[in-house]
């Protein structure tokens, strides 16, 4: 029998804010243990939460970008469970009235090869709600150490419908989700820093069946490729269990990326009766149309929309768009350069090939690059106007990447201007003709190739500054005179 996997993802995304969700202390990563706490974060007796307005703004923005309905009223609930990383032993969360309802995420599946666009589809979302992150446990041989720096960081939980069927789809989902979150300025989504964390609910069923199978929750999917590998592993495991006459049991398994395998977790001690109830310390949030409109105005174009515009407006090939579009800064850089010089393809090529190569070699983020969009626009214009050749332009690029000087200034300073002066070139051509009688003879004998050698010699003598078309013309004229 053929089986089909059904996958739903629960993705936690930390919202980028200055301070924590319900406490005034700063939020951040990589600090010394327990240096980002205050009485509220530690849940000291008598402390109370007050919500961070920006975190609400940000989740609304995320919801709007993902096509969710924003609830006119939402509230806060306490999720009660004991765990040492949870300072109050309840987590402030949203239970039955989340702030974002429904929504969908457009994803792109892998194409038949790298330069072929894959199939697009929409994954339905169930909801997005806001909660507070917990602290971090560090396990040792005989005990565990708790650091509460992370506790209280605003955290979104984005829940998808069981709408995916392979590790590839989950991978595409996370990739698309991350692009939106990063480009919306909602989160940096660095999985290594725990800013994006993913749990998967996986089940299998006979292909074509309607009913859902017994689901296994897979945790600790700590990288985007880990998500793909972990899910594919779990699907295979479940199929094997069923094919060998067994039954999948409902459990939580932990993915170990190094071992490339998942093992069941001990979750029996975890009570699953969370006793949710409305948090009496926090007031409901009412979102009106004005508020929504203010946030709508801050939303950038979605990545796939931008890609379609690049196809339509600029006629760019898929491969180049798939380099530009995932990176909002790169896309903005590109569009700014295009605005100045009106040559999208040339600009895109400079960015996709030369700029990315040099940035990565120098280890420089694009924000810190001395080379700005106007440099590329200037360079493209110089080539287009025939001031320099494409080859010379490559050198100018390297120079301006390093120095940040304007391309016009570099050309001027180094005297790289292409020569189209026929008078000057006629002299050089005649010298080359005189020095290479064998080639002249070949040319006269009808060997068209011979002129290329002579051209090369002229370019060499002018150190590449001669306009190749003019050289070609002058050489033929002079050779014909012989």
């Amino acid at each position: 029998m053929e089986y089909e996997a059904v996958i739903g993802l629960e993705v936690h995304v930390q919202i980028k804010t200055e301070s924590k969700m319900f406490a005034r202390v700063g939020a951040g990563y990589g600090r010394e243990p327990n240096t980002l706490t205050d009485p509220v974060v530690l849940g000291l007796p008598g402390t109370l939460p007050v919500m961070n307005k920006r975190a609400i703004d940000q989740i609304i923005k995320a919801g709007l970008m993902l096509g969710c309905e924003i609830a006119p009223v939402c509230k806060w609930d306490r999720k009660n469970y004991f765990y040492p990383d949870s300072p109050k032993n309840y987590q402030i969360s949203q239970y039955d009235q989340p702030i974002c309802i429904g929504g969908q995420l457009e994803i792109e599946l892998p194409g038949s090869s790298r330069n072929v666009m894959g199939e697009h589809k929409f994954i339905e979302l169930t909801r997005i709600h806001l909660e507070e992150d917990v602290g971090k446990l560090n396990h040792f041989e005989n005990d565990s150490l708790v650091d509460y720096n992370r506790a209280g960081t605003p955290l979104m939980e984005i829940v998808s419908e069981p709408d995916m069927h392979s590790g590839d789809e989950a991978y595409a989902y996370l990739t698309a989700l991350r692009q939106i979150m990063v480009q919306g300025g909602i989160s940096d989504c660095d999985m290594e820093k725990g800013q994006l964390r993913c749990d998967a609910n996986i089940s299998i069923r006979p292909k074509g069946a309607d009913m859902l199978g017994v689901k296994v929750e897979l945790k600790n999917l700590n990288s985007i490729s880990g998500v793909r590998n972990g899910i594919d592993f779990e699907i295979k495991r479940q199929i094997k269990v069923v094919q060998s006459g067994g039954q999948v049991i409902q459990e939580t398994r932990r993915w170990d990326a190094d071992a490339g395998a998942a093992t069941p977790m001990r979750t029996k001690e975890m009570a699953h009766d969370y006793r949710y109830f409305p948090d009496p310390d926090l007031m409901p949030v009412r979102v009106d149309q004005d508020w929504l409109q203010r946030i709508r105005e801050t939303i950038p174009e979605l990545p796939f929309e931008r890609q379609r515009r690049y196809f339509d407006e600029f006629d760019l090939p898929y491969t180049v768009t798939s380099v530009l579009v995932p990176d909002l800064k790169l896309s903005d850089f590109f569009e700014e350069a295009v605005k100045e010089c009106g040559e999208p393809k040339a600009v895109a090529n400079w960015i996709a090939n030369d700029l990315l190569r040099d940035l990565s070699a120098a280890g420089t983020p694009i924000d810190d690059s001395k080379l700005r969009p106007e440099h590329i626009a200037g360079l493209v214009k110089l080539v287009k106007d025939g001031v320099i050749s494409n080859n010379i332009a490559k050198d100018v690029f390297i120079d301006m990447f390093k120095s940040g000087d304007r391309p016009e200034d570099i050309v001027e300073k180094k005297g790289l201007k292409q020569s189209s002066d026929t008078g000057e070139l006629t002299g050089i051509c005649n010298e080359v003709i005189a020095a290479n009688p064998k080639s002249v003879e070949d040319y006269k004998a009808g060997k068209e190739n011979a002129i290329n050698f002579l051209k090369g010699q002229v370019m060499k003598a002018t150190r590449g500054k001669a306009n190749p078309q003019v050289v070609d013309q002058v050489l033929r004229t002079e050779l014909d005179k012989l």
Partner: protein
Amino acid sequence: MAESLYYRTAAELSRALESKELSSEEIVRSVIERTRAVDDKVSAFISFDEGDALERARASDRRRAEGKALGPLDGIPVGIKDVLAVEGQPLTCASRMLGKFVSPYDATAIARLKAAGAVPWGRLNMDEFAMGSSTENSSVKTTSNPWNTDCIPGGSSGGSAACVAAGEAPISLGSDTGGSIRQPAALCGVVGMKPTYGLVSRYGLVAFASSLDQIGPFAHTVEDAAILLQAVAGHDDRDSSSYRTDIPDYRKELSSRKGPWKLGIPKEYFGEGLDPEVARAIEAAIDFYRGEGCEIVDVSLPHTEHAVGVYYIIATAEASSNLARYDGVRYSHRSAEATDAIDLYFKSRAEGFGPEVKRRVILGTYVLSSGYYDAYYLKAQKVRTLIRRDFLQAYEKVDALLTPTTPSPAFRKGEKTDDPLQMYLSDIFTISANLAGIPGISIPCGFSESGLPIGLQILGQPFQEADLFAIARRFEQAHDYHTRHPSL
């Protein structure tokens, strides 16, 4: 002079400070001496820090000498229930669970007291985590009623009431979740007020039931209660339930609000179970107001009989969650016997909590647990709506309500400890105000034949504390109950 100094009111002391008749240091010393003399009998204090109090008193005297006195409370000692966070002081809630806890921060109410120059004085005994009506649930000791030390002082703020009654502090702060200020005030013969929910910031008040808790004053007189409330009331952006409202000058309003008022008598508060001596005292008080030209109106609060049930669902549910943080991990009592993290919870909480706390946490956990939420918690929240509606409807007809504060005068220690339900029912007249969020005050209105105080409760409209004070003060001015003191 020295022997009566400790029974002067805060307003009197304030005038004496202003006229340089007394220094703050003298006042604080008199209170320290009085506490040392009588607290063996009263047991109002869990602990006190004489050095800190004297240092603050001297700082107040220096301010005054420089002409920089901060107001009527500058230099006045204020007893503090051990449920309010004071930076650098123990915060135990009378629980073994927080036996070693020292607060690293000030509650907003405390910060405001300090800013007014007041001297926080001692850590006052209470029922553990404010759960109880007699202070018998304190893990430290039971406070005695200064009028009869075989009797309980009421609770949970029993220490706050008893210390004022015994002259160990002129005024004090307590907290009221279901009557924990008004009931001990009544039983100890002092003034106690629970403000409207949201008037005083709860930041730094250790939570029992977050939607019901309020901080409020104890005092010998209505004027003192008004002065103390004035200092702590007002919006605080550290408490989301804090209400933005203009706070009138309560002391000024005392004389400017003259009535006569329309006063409602809710029939549900005068049924069976009301001690005849209490009933007589309250009737006399009603007659007094009638004689003052107030219109006395019979009203009904039909859902009163459900208040105790609703209260014990909502309060215990919130408590079960609020008290989850006491787990032996970050700052509370840690069992030495634990073998792993899970075991640590079970044993630390078994050792750290007393029986009443355990009982309420169990009840609260139960009513929230899977399958019971709708039947208990949600239902209770809906009946709470009806209870609140009862009051708002009554207030369309009257300015305030007159009721007994408690069904009987102080009962004897040990009398109800084995019967939680009977103990819970002793709060029957005070609980509704917390559920409705309205303010209430209890003032002395008589004594039983055996010499125990009786309290009159006046329930007011939301944020109309000034009316309550004025109504209460009218009675106080015509009677001398508030000037009587127990012999200790």
